[in-house]
Protein backbone atom coordinates (compact mmCIF):
# COMPACT_ATOMS: atom_id res chain seq x y z
CA UNK A 1 0.00 0.00 0.00
CA UNK A 2 2.80 2.33 1.08
CA UNK A 3 4.72 1.47 -2.10
CA UNK A 4 1.65 2.21 -4.20
CA UNK A 5 1.21 5.61 -2.56
CA UNK A 6 4.87 6.48 -3.09
CA UNK A 7 4.59 5.44 -6.72
CA UNK A 8 1.49 7.58 -7.18
CA UNK A 9 3.23 10.57 -5.63
CA UNK A 10 6.27 10.14 -7.86
CA UNK A 11 4.06 9.85 -10.90
CA UNK A 12 2.19 13.00 -9.89
CA UNK A 13 5.48 14.83 -9.36
CA UNK A 14 6.65 13.68 -12.76
CA UNK A 15 3.47 14.98 -14.35
CA UNK A 16 4.16 18.40 -12.85
CA UNK A 17 7.71 18.31 -14.20
CA UNK A 18 9.14 18.09 -10.68
CA UNK A 19 12.30 16.27 -9.71
CA UNK A 20 13.79 14.89 -6.52
CA UNK A 21 16.89 16.66 -5.11
CA UNK A 22 19.50 14.17 -3.96
CA UNK A 23 19.81 15.41 -0.39
CA UNK A 24 21.38 13.04 2.10
CA UNK A 25 19.25 12.89 5.22
CA UNK A 26 15.81 14.29 6.02
CA UNK A 27 15.25 17.75 4.55
CA UNK A 28 14.21 20.68 6.69
CA UNK A 29 12.33 21.96 3.67
CA UNK A 30 11.76 21.37 0.00
CA UNK A 31 11.03 24.49 -2.06
CA UNK A 32 10.86 25.22 -5.73
CA UNK A 33 11.36 27.95 -8.29
CA UNK A 34 10.16 27.95 -11.91
CA UNK A 35 13.08 25.78 -13.04
CA UNK A 36 14.44 24.08 -9.94
CA UNK A 37 13.51 22.11 -6.85
CA UNK A 38 15.74 22.58 -3.82
CA UNK A 39 15.92 20.64 -0.56
CA UNK A 40 18.10 21.52 2.40
CA UNK A 41 18.83 20.75 6.01
CA UNK A 42 20.90 22.36 8.72
CA UNK A 43 23.82 20.75 10.48
CA UNK A 44 23.39 20.45 13.41
CA UNK A 45 19.64 19.94 13.02
CA UNK A 46 18.88 22.39 15.83
CA UNK A 47 20.21 25.86 15.07
CA UNK A 48 21.08 27.90 18.19
CA UNK A 49 21.52 31.64 18.50
CA UNK A 50 25.20 32.52 18.28
CA UNK A 51 26.38 29.11 17.09
CA UNK A 52 27.88 28.47 13.67
CA UNK A 53 26.04 25.94 11.56
CA UNK A 54 26.22 24.46 8.08
CA UNK A 55 23.63 23.83 5.36
CA UNK A 56 23.47 20.77 3.17
CA UNK A 57 21.69 21.69 -0.04
CA UNK A 58 20.61 19.71 -3.09
CA UNK A 59 18.81 20.96 -6.18
CA UNK A 60 17.61 19.46 -9.43
CA UNK A 61 16.15 20.79 -12.68
CA UNK A 62 12.47 20.41 -13.41
CA UNK A 63 11.31 18.86 -16.68
CA UNK A 64 14.48 16.76 -16.85
CA UNK A 65 16.50 19.96 -16.91
CA UNK A 66 20.08 20.27 -15.71
CA UNK A 67 20.61 21.01 -12.03
CA UNK A 68 21.91 24.50 -11.26
CA UNK A 69 25.66 24.77 -11.62
CA UNK A 70 26.17 27.30 -8.85
CA UNK A 71 24.64 28.08 -5.48
CA UNK A 72 24.91 31.12 -3.23
CA UNK A 73 23.52 31.06 0.29
CA UNK A 74 22.64 33.93 2.59
CA UNK A 75 20.10 34.75 5.30
CA UNK A 76 18.50 37.87 6.71
CA UNK A 77 15.90 39.15 9.16
CA UNK A 78 13.38 40.98 6.99
CA UNK A 79 11.64 42.76 9.88
CA UNK A 80 14.94 44.00 11.28
CA UNK A 81 16.33 44.78 7.84
CA UNK A 82 19.69 43.22 8.46
CA UNK A 83 21.50 40.11 7.39
CA UNK A 84 24.12 37.92 8.99
CA UNK A 85 27.49 39.20 10.11
CA UNK A 86 29.12 36.27 8.32
CA UNK A 87 29.36 35.26 4.66
CA UNK A 88 28.69 31.59 4.05
CA UNK A 89 31.21 29.70 1.94
CA UNK A 90 29.73 27.14 -0.43
CA UNK A 91 31.55 23.99 -1.48
CA UNK A 92 30.19 21.76 -4.27
CA UNK A 93 29.95 18.09 -3.24
CA UNK A 94 28.61 16.67 -6.50
CA UNK A 95 26.48 17.98 -9.41
CA UNK A 96 23.42 19.52 -7.74
CA UNK A 97 24.75 19.11 -4.18
CA UNK A 98 26.55 21.61 -1.93
CA UNK A 99 27.66 22.25 1.61
CA UNK A 100 27.54 25.82 2.96
CA UNK A 101 29.65 26.66 6.01
CA UNK A 102 29.99 29.62 8.31
CA UNK A 103 26.38 30.67 8.86
CA UNK A 104 25.52 32.18 12.24
CA UNK A 105 22.24 33.70 13.44
CA UNK A 106 23.17 36.28 16.04
CA UNK A 107 19.71 36.95 17.44
CA UNK A 108 16.43 35.14 17.98
CA UNK A 109 13.47 35.96 15.76
CA UNK A 110 12.30 35.54 12.19
CA UNK A 111 15.09 34.77 9.77
CA UNK A 112 14.85 33.90 6.09
CA UNK A 113 17.25 31.66 4.19
CA UNK A 114 18.09 32.89 0.69
CA UNK A 115 19.30 30.58 -2.07
CA UNK A 116 20.49 31.90 -5.41
CA UNK A 117 20.56 29.15 -8.03
CA UNK A 118 22.52 29.77 -11.17
CA UNK A 119 22.50 27.70 -14.32
CA UNK A 120 21.81 28.44 -17.93
CA UNK A 121 19.55 31.47 -17.96
CA UNK A 122 18.75 33.96 -15.23
CA UNK A 123 19.60 33.33 -11.57
CA UNK A 124 16.62 32.15 -9.57
CA UNK A 125 16.18 33.08 -5.93
CA UNK A 126 14.44 30.85 -3.43
CA UNK A 127 13.71 31.79 0.15
CA UNK A 128 12.53 29.94 3.22
CA UNK A 129 11.35 31.50 6.51
CA UNK A 130 12.93 30.22 9.69
CA UNK A 131 11.80 31.08 13.21
CA UNK A 132 14.61 30.95 15.78
CA UNK A 133 13.60 31.01 19.45
Amino acid at each position, binding site marked *: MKRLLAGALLAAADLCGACEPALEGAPLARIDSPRYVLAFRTEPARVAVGEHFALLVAACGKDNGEPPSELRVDAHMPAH*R*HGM*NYAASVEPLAPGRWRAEGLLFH*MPGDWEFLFDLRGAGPTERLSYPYRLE
Partner: protein
Amino acid sequence: MIRRSLLALLCVAAPAAAELLPFTDAEVRRILSHGPWPMAWTPDPSNRVSGNAAAIALGRELFFEPRLSGDGSVRCASCHIEARAWQDGRATAAAFAPLERNTPSVHNVRFNRWFGWDGAHDSLWAQSIRPLLDPREMRSDAARVARLLREDAALRARYETAFGAAPPDDDEAVLVDAAKALAAFQETLVTGRTPFDEFRDALARGDRDAAARYPLAAQRGLRIFIGKGNCSVCHFGPNFANGEFADIGVPFFVARGAVDSGRHGGIRALKASRYNLLSRWNDDPTRRTAAKTRHVIAQHRNFGEFRVPSLRNVALTAPYMHNGRLATLHDVARHYSEIDLDRLHADGERILQPLHLDAREIDDLVAFLESLSEARAP
Protein backbone atom coordinates in the same frame (compact mmCIF):
# COMPACT_ATOMS: atom_id res chain seq x y z
CA MET B 1 -8.26 58.72 63.87
CA ILE B 2 -6.45 56.20 66.05
CA ARG B 3 -7.64 53.40 63.81
CA ARG B 4 -6.36 55.23 60.72
CA SER B 5 -2.99 55.87 62.36
CA LEU B 6 -2.73 52.24 63.39
CA LEU B 7 -3.52 51.13 59.85
CA ALA B 8 -0.89 53.45 58.43
CA LEU B 9 1.63 52.13 60.94
CA LEU B 10 0.84 48.53 59.99
CA CYS B 11 1.21 49.35 56.31
CA VAL B 12 4.66 50.80 56.95
CA ALA B 13 5.79 47.98 59.21
CA ALA B 14 4.52 44.99 57.24
CA PRO B 15 6.73 43.69 54.45
CA ALA B 16 5.19 43.88 51.01
CA ALA B 17 3.31 40.69 50.23
CA ALA B 18 5.28 38.48 47.86
CA GLU B 19 3.70 38.58 44.44
CA LEU B 20 4.42 36.94 41.14
CA LEU B 21 3.36 38.69 37.95
CA PRO B 22 1.23 36.55 35.63
CA PHE B 23 3.97 35.91 33.06
CA THR B 24 2.72 34.30 29.87
CA ASP B 25 4.15 31.01 28.61
CA ALA B 26 6.10 32.91 25.94
CA GLU B 27 7.52 35.25 28.58
CA VAL B 28 8.52 32.33 30.78
CA ARG B 29 10.32 30.71 27.84
CA ARG B 30 12.26 33.91 27.26
CA ILE B 31 13.12 34.23 30.95
CA LEU B 32 14.33 30.64 31.12
CA SER B 33 16.60 31.26 28.12
CA HIS B 34 18.68 33.55 30.36
CA GLY B 35 19.98 30.61 32.38
CA PRO B 36 21.06 28.41 33.89
CA TRP B 37 24.01 30.16 35.47
CA PRO B 38 26.91 29.53 35.58
CA MET B 39 27.14 28.32 32.01
CA ALA B 40 28.88 25.13 31.00
CA TRP B 41 32.31 25.77 29.61
CA THR B 42 34.99 23.80 27.81
CA PRO B 43 38.63 24.85 27.45
CA ASP B 44 39.63 26.98 24.47
CA PRO B 45 41.18 24.65 21.84
CA SER B 46 43.17 27.56 20.40
CA ASN B 47 45.07 27.84 23.68
CA ARG B 48 46.94 24.69 24.69
CA VAL B 49 47.10 25.78 28.35
CA SER B 50 43.45 26.79 28.69
CA GLY B 51 42.14 25.21 31.89
CA ASN B 52 45.66 24.16 32.97
CA ALA B 53 46.09 24.90 36.70
CA ALA B 54 49.78 25.78 36.41
CA ALA B 55 49.07 28.17 33.54
CA ILE B 56 46.25 29.77 35.51
CA ALA B 57 48.63 30.37 38.41
CA LEU B 58 51.26 31.82 36.07
CA GLY B 59 48.62 33.96 34.38
CA ARG B 60 47.44 35.34 37.69
CA GLU B 61 50.99 36.27 38.61
CA LEU B 62 51.56 37.96 35.26
CA PHE B 63 48.24 39.83 35.53
CA PHE B 64 49.56 41.59 38.64
CA GLU B 65 53.18 41.89 37.38
CA PRO B 66 54.30 45.49 36.68
CA ARG B 67 57.62 44.40 35.16
CA LEU B 68 55.74 43.35 32.02
CA SER B 69 55.27 47.04 31.20
CA GLY B 70 57.70 49.39 29.52
CA ASP B 71 58.87 51.17 32.67
CA GLY B 72 57.81 48.59 35.25
CA SER B 73 54.91 50.66 36.56
CA VAL B 74 51.74 49.33 34.89
CA ARG B 75 50.00 46.03 35.52
CA CYS B 76 47.05 44.49 33.67
CA ALA B 77 45.42 44.92 37.08
CA SER B 78 46.10 48.67 37.05
CA CYS B 79 43.00 49.08 34.86
CA HIS B 80 41.27 45.74 35.51
CA ILE B 81 40.98 46.27 39.26
CA GLU B 82 39.74 43.25 41.19
CA ALA B 83 37.93 45.34 43.81
CA ARG B 84 36.07 47.18 41.03
CA ALA B 85 34.70 44.09 39.32
CA TRP B 86 37.84 43.95 37.15
CA GLN B 87 37.36 47.37 35.55
CA ASP B 88 38.51 50.84 36.64
CA GLY B 89 35.41 52.95 37.19
CA ARG B 90 36.69 55.62 34.77
CA ALA B 91 34.81 56.81 31.69
CA THR B 92 37.81 56.09 29.47
CA ALA B 93 40.99 54.22 30.25
CA ALA B 94 44.36 55.80 30.93
CA ALA B 95 47.76 54.23 31.56
CA PHE B 96 50.78 55.82 29.89
CA ALA B 97 48.35 57.99 27.92
CA PRO B 98 44.60 58.49 27.73
CA LEU B 99 42.57 56.14 25.56
CA GLU B 100 39.23 56.68 23.85
CA ARG B 101 37.35 53.69 25.21
CA ASN B 102 36.02 52.47 28.53
CA THR B 103 37.88 49.66 30.31
CA PRO B 104 35.57 46.64 30.16
CA SER B 105 35.42 44.19 33.03
CA VAL B 106 37.15 40.88 32.36
CA HIS B 107 34.47 39.01 34.28
CA ASN B 108 32.88 36.31 32.10
CA VAL B 109 35.24 37.24 29.28
CA ARG B 110 35.72 33.57 28.47
CA PHE B 111 32.21 33.47 27.03
CA ASN B 112 32.97 36.13 24.39
CA ARG B 113 33.17 35.31 20.70
CA TRP B 114 35.06 38.52 19.93
CA PHE B 115 37.28 40.57 22.21
CA GLY B 116 37.60 44.29 22.70
CA TRP B 117 34.86 46.87 22.06
CA ASP B 118 35.50 46.52 18.31
CA GLY B 119 36.14 42.77 18.27
CA ALA B 120 39.58 43.27 16.75
CA HIS B 121 40.67 39.99 18.32
CA ASP B 122 39.21 36.53 17.99
CA SER B 123 40.72 34.90 21.08
CA LEU B 124 41.30 35.94 24.64
CA TRP B 125 45.03 35.28 24.30
CA ALA B 126 45.32 37.50 21.21
CA GLN B 127 43.36 40.21 23.03
CA SER B 128 45.78 39.87 25.95
CA ILE B 129 48.74 40.70 23.70
CA ARG B 130 47.24 44.00 22.56
CA PRO B 131 47.57 46.09 25.76
CA LEU B 132 51.07 44.71 26.34
CA LEU B 133 52.26 46.18 23.04
CA ASP B 134 50.13 49.34 22.96
CA PRO B 135 52.39 52.32 23.74
CA ARG B 136 49.51 54.04 25.55
CA GLU B 137 48.80 51.07 27.78
CA MET B 138 51.71 48.86 28.90
CA ARG B 139 54.29 50.01 26.32
CA SER B 140 56.06 46.66 26.32
CA ASP B 141 57.50 44.42 23.62
CA ALA B 142 58.16 40.73 22.99
CA ALA B 143 61.82 40.98 24.04
CA ARG B 144 60.94 42.52 27.42
CA VAL B 145 58.27 39.91 28.17
CA ALA B 146 60.55 37.05 27.08
CA ARG B 147 63.48 38.35 29.12
CA LEU B 148 61.35 38.52 32.27
CA LEU B 149 60.11 34.96 31.84
CA ARG B 150 63.59 33.63 31.12
CA GLU B 151 65.49 35.55 33.81
CA ASP B 152 63.13 35.61 36.79
CA ALA B 153 63.69 32.22 38.43
CA ALA B 154 60.20 31.92 39.94
CA LEU B 155 58.42 32.94 36.74
CA ARG B 156 60.66 30.68 34.67
CA ALA B 157 59.82 27.73 36.92
CA ARG B 158 56.10 28.47 36.65
CA TYR B 159 56.42 28.74 32.86
CA GLU B 160 58.16 25.34 32.70
CA THR B 161 55.43 23.73 34.79
CA ALA B 162 52.67 25.25 32.69
CA PHE B 163 54.16 24.68 29.23
CA GLY B 164 56.31 21.61 29.92
CA ALA B 165 59.54 23.21 28.70
CA ALA B 166 61.75 26.22 29.32
CA PRO B 167 60.85 29.48 27.53
CA PRO B 168 62.06 29.13 23.91
CA ASP B 169 64.61 31.43 22.28
CA ASP B 170 61.95 32.99 20.06
CA ASP B 171 60.80 36.15 21.89
CA GLU B 172 57.51 36.26 20.03
CA ALA B 173 56.70 32.67 21.01
CA VAL B 174 57.27 33.57 24.67
CA LEU B 175 55.05 36.67 24.29
CA VAL B 176 52.24 34.53 22.87
CA ASP B 177 52.67 31.95 25.65
CA ALA B 178 52.54 34.70 28.28
CA ALA B 179 49.29 35.89 26.71
CA LYS B 180 47.94 32.33 26.74
CA ALA B 181 48.71 32.07 30.47
CA LEU B 182 47.04 35.47 31.02
CA ALA B 183 44.01 34.15 29.12
CA ALA B 184 43.94 30.94 31.18
CA PHE B 185 43.75 33.07 34.33
CA GLN B 186 41.06 35.43 32.99
CA GLU B 187 38.94 32.44 31.96
CA THR B 188 38.52 31.66 35.66
CA LEU B 189 36.85 35.02 36.41
CA VAL B 190 33.18 34.14 36.34
CA THR B 191 30.49 36.07 38.17
CA GLY B 192 28.44 34.36 40.85
CA ARG B 193 24.73 33.78 41.10
CA THR B 194 22.36 36.69 41.37
CA PRO B 195 18.79 37.38 42.54
CA PHE B 196 17.68 37.01 38.91
CA ASP B 197 19.23 33.51 38.74
CA GLU B 198 17.31 32.46 41.87
CA PHE B 199 14.09 33.77 40.31
CA ARG B 200 14.75 32.14 36.95
CA ASP B 201 15.55 28.76 38.51
CA ALA B 202 12.47 28.97 40.76
CA LEU B 203 10.34 29.53 37.62
CA ALA B 204 12.08 26.59 35.93
CA ARG B 205 11.16 24.20 38.74
CA GLY B 206 7.66 25.67 39.15
CA ASP B 207 8.30 27.01 42.66
CA ARG B 208 5.96 30.01 42.66
CA ASP B 209 6.63 30.89 46.30
CA ALA B 210 10.36 31.17 45.75
CA ALA B 211 9.83 33.06 42.47
CA ALA B 212 7.54 35.54 44.23
CA ARG B 213 10.41 36.56 46.50
CA TYR B 214 12.00 38.34 43.50
CA PRO B 215 11.11 42.02 43.92
CA LEU B 216 8.04 43.14 42.03
CA ALA B 217 9.85 46.13 40.52
CA ALA B 218 12.49 43.77 39.09
CA GLN B 219 9.73 41.53 37.69
CA ARG B 220 8.14 44.52 35.98
CA GLY B 221 11.54 45.61 34.65
CA LEU B 222 12.21 42.10 33.38
CA ARG B 223 8.91 42.20 31.52
CA ILE B 224 10.03 45.41 29.77
CA PHE B 225 13.44 43.86 29.06
CA ILE B 226 12.03 40.80 27.29
CA GLY B 227 8.97 42.58 25.92
CA LYS B 228 8.52 46.07 24.62
CA GLY B 229 12.15 46.99 25.29
CA ASN B 230 13.32 44.23 22.94
CA CYS B 231 16.55 44.26 24.97
CA SER B 232 16.91 40.48 25.05
CA VAL B 233 17.31 40.34 21.28
CA CYS B 234 20.91 41.51 21.70
CA HIS B 235 21.39 40.88 25.43
CA PHE B 236 20.59 37.26 24.79
CA GLY B 237 21.09 34.04 26.74
CA PRO B 238 22.59 33.26 30.14
CA ASN B 239 25.40 35.81 29.70
CA PHE B 240 22.98 38.53 28.52
CA ALA B 241 25.07 39.12 25.39
CA ASN B 242 24.76 37.71 21.88
CA GLY B 243 28.50 38.07 21.27
CA GLU B 244 28.06 40.48 18.37
CA PHE B 245 27.95 44.24 17.77
CA ALA B 246 25.38 47.00 17.63
CA ASP B 247 25.05 50.69 16.98
CA ILE B 248 22.91 52.11 19.76
CA GLY B 249 23.27 55.77 18.94
CA VAL B 250 26.16 56.60 21.25
CA PRO B 251 28.23 59.29 19.52
CA PHE B 252 31.53 57.95 18.28
CA PHE B 253 33.45 61.19 17.75
CA VAL B 254 36.66 60.96 19.75
CA ALA B 255 38.30 64.26 18.91
CA ARG B 256 37.77 67.12 16.51
CA GLY B 257 37.41 65.50 13.09
CA ALA B 258 38.19 62.00 14.35
CA VAL B 259 35.82 59.11 14.85
CA ASP B 260 36.00 55.70 16.44
CA SER B 261 34.78 53.45 13.66
CA GLY B 262 34.11 50.58 16.08
CA ARG B 263 33.44 47.19 14.53
CA HIS B 264 34.27 48.39 11.02
CA GLY B 265 37.86 49.11 12.04
CA GLY B 266 37.84 46.06 14.30
CA ILE B 267 37.27 43.68 11.41
CA ARG B 268 40.05 45.32 9.42
CA ALA B 269 42.41 44.99 12.40
CA LEU B 270 41.33 41.39 12.96
CA LYS B 271 42.04 40.37 9.37
CA ALA B 272 45.45 42.09 9.51
CA SER B 273 46.44 40.72 12.92
CA ARG B 274 49.43 38.40 13.00
CA TYR B 275 47.87 36.78 16.08
CA ASN B 276 44.44 35.92 14.72
CA LEU B 277 43.13 32.36 14.71
CA LEU B 278 44.20 31.87 11.10
CA SER B 279 47.81 32.37 12.20
CA ARG B 280 50.38 29.79 13.22
CA TRP B 281 49.83 30.69 16.87
CA ASN B 282 46.45 28.95 16.99
CA ASP B 283 46.98 25.66 18.88
CA ASP B 284 43.81 24.08 17.47
CA PRO B 285 44.96 21.54 14.85
CA THR B 286 41.43 21.28 13.39
CA ARG B 287 41.23 25.07 12.86
CA ARG B 288 37.49 24.84 13.61
CA THR B 289 38.02 27.70 16.08
CA ALA B 290 38.92 29.93 13.12
CA ALA B 291 35.55 29.52 11.35
CA LYS B 292 34.30 32.88 12.65
CA THR B 293 37.47 34.63 11.46
CA ARG B 294 37.26 33.03 8.02
CA HIS B 295 33.62 33.98 7.53
CA VAL B 296 33.16 37.35 9.21
CA ILE B 297 32.63 40.18 6.73
CA ALA B 298 32.94 43.94 7.04
CA GLN B 299 29.74 45.74 6.11
CA HIS B 300 28.88 49.41 5.90
CA ARG B 301 26.57 49.12 8.89
CA ASN B 302 29.49 47.99 11.10
CA PHE B 303 30.59 51.62 11.26
CA GLY B 304 29.91 52.83 14.80
CA GLU B 305 28.96 49.40 16.08
CA PHE B 306 30.46 48.24 19.37
CA ARG B 307 30.36 44.90 21.15
CA VAL B 308 27.18 44.05 23.03
CA PRO B 309 28.44 43.70 26.61
CA SER B 310 27.27 41.12 29.11
CA LEU B 311 24.89 42.61 31.68
CA ARG B 312 26.04 40.34 34.50
CA ASN B 313 27.30 42.47 37.39
CA VAL B 314 26.27 45.53 35.41
CA ALA B 315 25.44 47.45 38.59
CA LEU B 316 29.12 47.14 39.60
CA THR B 317 30.66 48.36 36.34
CA ALA B 318 29.64 51.99 35.86
CA PRO B 319 30.16 54.09 33.81
CA TYR B 320 28.54 52.60 30.72
CA MET B 321 28.88 52.34 26.94
CA HIS B 322 32.06 51.97 24.90
CA ASN B 323 33.21 55.44 25.86
CA GLY B 324 31.85 55.55 29.42
CA ARG B 325 29.51 58.34 28.39
CA LEU B 326 26.63 57.31 30.68
CA ALA B 327 27.26 57.48 34.42
CA THR B 328 24.39 55.43 35.85
CA LEU B 329 21.95 52.69 34.95
CA HIS B 330 19.18 55.30 35.06
CA ASP B 331 21.09 57.21 32.36
CA VAL B 332 21.28 54.00 30.31
CA ALA B 333 17.53 53.35 30.65
CA ARG B 334 16.80 56.96 29.69
CA HIS B 335 19.15 56.65 26.70
CA TYR B 336 17.10 53.77 25.29
CA SER B 337 13.86 55.43 26.28
CA GLU B 338 14.60 58.51 24.18
CA ILE B 339 17.05 57.06 21.68
CA ASP B 340 17.88 59.39 18.82
CA LEU B 341 17.34 57.37 15.65
CA ASP B 342 19.12 60.02 13.60
CA ARG B 343 22.35 59.07 15.33
CA LEU B 344 22.14 55.46 14.21
CA HIS B 345 24.33 54.39 11.35
CA ALA B 346 22.27 51.30 10.73
CA ASP B 347 21.42 51.26 7.00
CA GLY B 348 17.72 51.09 7.71
CA GLU B 349 17.97 48.45 10.42
CA ARG B 350 14.84 48.56 12.58
CA ILE B 351 15.53 47.05 15.97
CA LEU B 352 15.78 50.11 18.17
CA GLN B 353 12.88 52.48 18.68
CA PRO B 354 12.43 55.08 21.43
CA LEU B 355 10.65 53.29 24.28
CA HIS B 356 9.18 56.44 25.87
CA LEU B 357 9.29 54.87 29.34
CA ASP B 358 7.73 56.76 32.22
CA ALA B 359 9.62 57.34 35.49
CA ARG B 360 8.32 54.19 37.15
CA GLU B 361 9.16 52.04 34.15
CA ILE B 362 12.71 53.41 34.15
CA ASP B 363 13.00 52.59 37.87
CA ASP B 364 11.64 49.10 37.18
CA LEU B 365 14.10 48.48 34.36
CA VAL B 366 16.95 49.60 36.61
CA ALA B 367 15.68 47.34 39.42
CA PHE B 368 15.83 44.42 37.00
CA LEU B 369 19.34 45.33 35.80
CA GLU B 370 20.52 45.62 39.40
CA SER B 371 19.19 42.13 40.07
CA LEU B 372 21.71 40.80 37.51
CA SER B 373 24.53 41.64 39.89
CA GLU B 374 26.00 39.76 42.80
CA ALA B 375 25.34 41.28 46.19
CA ARG B 376 27.96 43.86 47.10
CA ALA B 377 30.21 43.08 50.01
CA PRO B 378 28.84 44.83 53.15
